[in-house]
């Protein structure tokens, strides 16, 4: 398959949970398209459903949750329709694997690190004994652990947080996956370690040629690694596009609000912007634009009808009525304007983009 072809295409995914006798709709018709070899970052606040959506791609929803409708096509197969646990075994950990947020608890404390990696080689590559051990050592070396032949015999508690995350990554990529989902891979780590882990994932992606999905609320991570960004709010994807487009030419009021609340974009001497209110209660049916109640400049139509995805450019679309030709012209907030003025229009390289997001406010 060539670079740029769709590897995973999800449409209108609806995921529900049974909670305390009531039904909660965590994902309300989300769709996304993942291309071979690219890096997609899904951003959004806690509870926006970014984890739930990706978990549904490897059949790891909690027991009280299920995919209600929609489809997610991967290698010609609809993942959303898989019900049988056995069918997942052909995909989970083999074609699509996952790195979790907290490396401190993700490893079995009673098995050696080596044994936990070895399991993957035994399961997916049919290796055993010396061969498997050799593969483990190689893998550990590859994720940057010194003295791997000794350290594989150690237990997780003998490793630091960053080292453990390297082990978790080793486990995740040992199966040579086609897609790697990283759920907040650096959130639980020291700031100094974060960049190292991101660099490691990037390097592995280059060597092993997989596609990466990051789930994060850290826009710094997004700027550092993402080709493409999807912004999630209340169980829907509200804006999506290339990292450049979402950062410098965002269209959805929620994306504006999210970017405005970045400390780096704040103006000295002025209070930092924060989004007022709370996300909607997903036990209830949401009418119209879910973000409207928190948007001081919402239109009446936002409360009446759910906006469709309007196409801004071939790669960029956003679900907001502001893109309807009948809508009044709306000024984005000052921080967004400032960003557009400083960098918009100009063609930017990826590296520069990352720097810009990090230092934007200080420029």
């Amino acid at each position, binding site marked *: 398959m060539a670079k740029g072809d769709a590897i995973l295409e999800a449409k209108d995914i609806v995921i529900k949970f049974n909670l305390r006798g009531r039904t909660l709709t965590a994902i309300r018709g989300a769709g996304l398209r993942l291309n071979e070899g690219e890096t997609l970052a899904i951003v959004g606040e806690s509870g926006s459903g970014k984890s739930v959506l990706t978990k549904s791609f490897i059949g*790891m929803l909690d027991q009280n949750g299920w995919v209600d409708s929609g489809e997610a096509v991967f290698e010609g197969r609809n993942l959303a329709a898989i019900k049988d646990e*056995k069918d997942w*075994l052909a995909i989970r950990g083999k074609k699509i*694997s996952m790195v*979790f947020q907290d490396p401190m*608890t993700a490893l079995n404390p*009673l098995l050696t690190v080596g044994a936990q990696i070895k*399991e993957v080689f035994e*399961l997916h590559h049919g290796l055993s004994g010396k061969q498997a051990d050799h593969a483990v050592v190689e893998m550990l070396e590859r994720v940057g652990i010194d003295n791997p032949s000794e350290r594989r015999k150690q237990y997780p508690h003998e490793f630091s947080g960053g080292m453990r995350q390297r082990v978790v990554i080793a486990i995740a990529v040992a199966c040579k996956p086609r897609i790697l989902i990283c759920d907040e891979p650096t959130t639980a780590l020291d700031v100094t370690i974060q960049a190292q882990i991101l660099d490691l994932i990037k390097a592995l992606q280059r060597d092993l040629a997989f596609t990466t999905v990051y789930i994060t609320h850290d826009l710094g991570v997004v700027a550092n690694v993402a080709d493409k960004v999807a912004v999630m709010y209340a169980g829907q994807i509200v804006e999506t596009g290339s990292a450049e487009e979402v950062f410098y030419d965002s269209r959805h009021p929620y994306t504006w609000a999210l970017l405005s609340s970045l400390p780096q974009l704040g103006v000295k001497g002025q209070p930092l912007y924060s989004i007022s209110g709370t996300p909607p209660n997903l036990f209830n049916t949401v009418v119209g634009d879910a973000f409207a109640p928190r948007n001081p400049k919402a239109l009446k139509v936002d409360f009446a009808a759910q906006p469709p995805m309007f196409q801004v450019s071939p790669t960029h679309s956003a679900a907001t009525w502001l893109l309807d030709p009948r809508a009044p012209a709306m000024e984005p907030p000052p921080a967004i304007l400032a960003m557009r003025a400083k960098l918009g229009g100009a063609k930017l390289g990826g590296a520069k983009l990352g720097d810009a997001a990090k230092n934007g406010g200080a420029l």
Partner: protein
Amino acid sequence: MLKYTIKRLGQSLITLFIVVSAVFLLMRLLPVEGYFGDGYDKLSESQREAVLQKMGLLDPWYVQMGAFYKGLLRGDLGVSTIYRKDVPVLEVIGPRVPYSMKFGIVATCLALIAGLGMGVSMAKNKGKGLDKLWTGYVVFVNAVPLAVYLLFIQLYGTSLLDLPLLFDKYMPSSWILPAVSMSLGGIAGYAMWMRRYMVDELNKDYIKLAKAKGLSQSTIMVRHVMRNAYVPMAQYLPASILMTISGSIYIESLYSIPGMGGLLVDVIQRQDNTMVQALVLIFSSVGIIGLFLGDLLMALFDPRIKLSKSGASR
């Protein structure tokens, strides 16, 4: 590991010392009549004094305690005063030890095998019929006093299964009911804890990673969940010896098994102070040693313990 063992051993020895001293001092609170048996009224005041003097009971408590510890170090726990007058306590207890041990070991093994199996099957079928059935059993055994249900087992077990009512060392079938009775509590305990630990482990993050690796549910159960749940169970094993002791005291007496438990009931009823004291000390020591071994076993299984300083974690 060695350091931990030594530390934990020291702790156990201190506990043992405190327990022995406490028991000894508590026993001094008893009225001295207990040392005379039925003959108390027949003796004159001076005769009584002479007897007490000879036994050292009129000395100040610290002298008595010193003498007691001296005796203890020589393996001398005193003589029986009523049960078998003037026979050394250890001579009375000695022949009874093998019976208690045999029953204890058999019951513990039975409990371990049946209880762990039951617990695993409960965790695997959580919320389904089998889980509910075994839960019913656990509730029954825990809620109904053992003094009650064991009575019914003896009553109906003997008539329905045609088994002997009392223990007879020459009749192997007379082992069955007491051994099974002794294991019932342990089975319920193991099953309940095994189920709980397995459910706990199932909810941990590393199970998510194991699942994300692509391991099947049954592999996760065997390689990760069960393995990890056995570790806290290892600690529970000797703790269950404490429970078996409780049961054995009653059961040995019910079935007239010539063990230490039945003996304790006898000497309590006969009010033989030195015998009670000796048996209480023996049972307490068994408890302390059991918990010590449990912690060692756990340290053996759990690599994290060697680093932590905790010994008094329970």
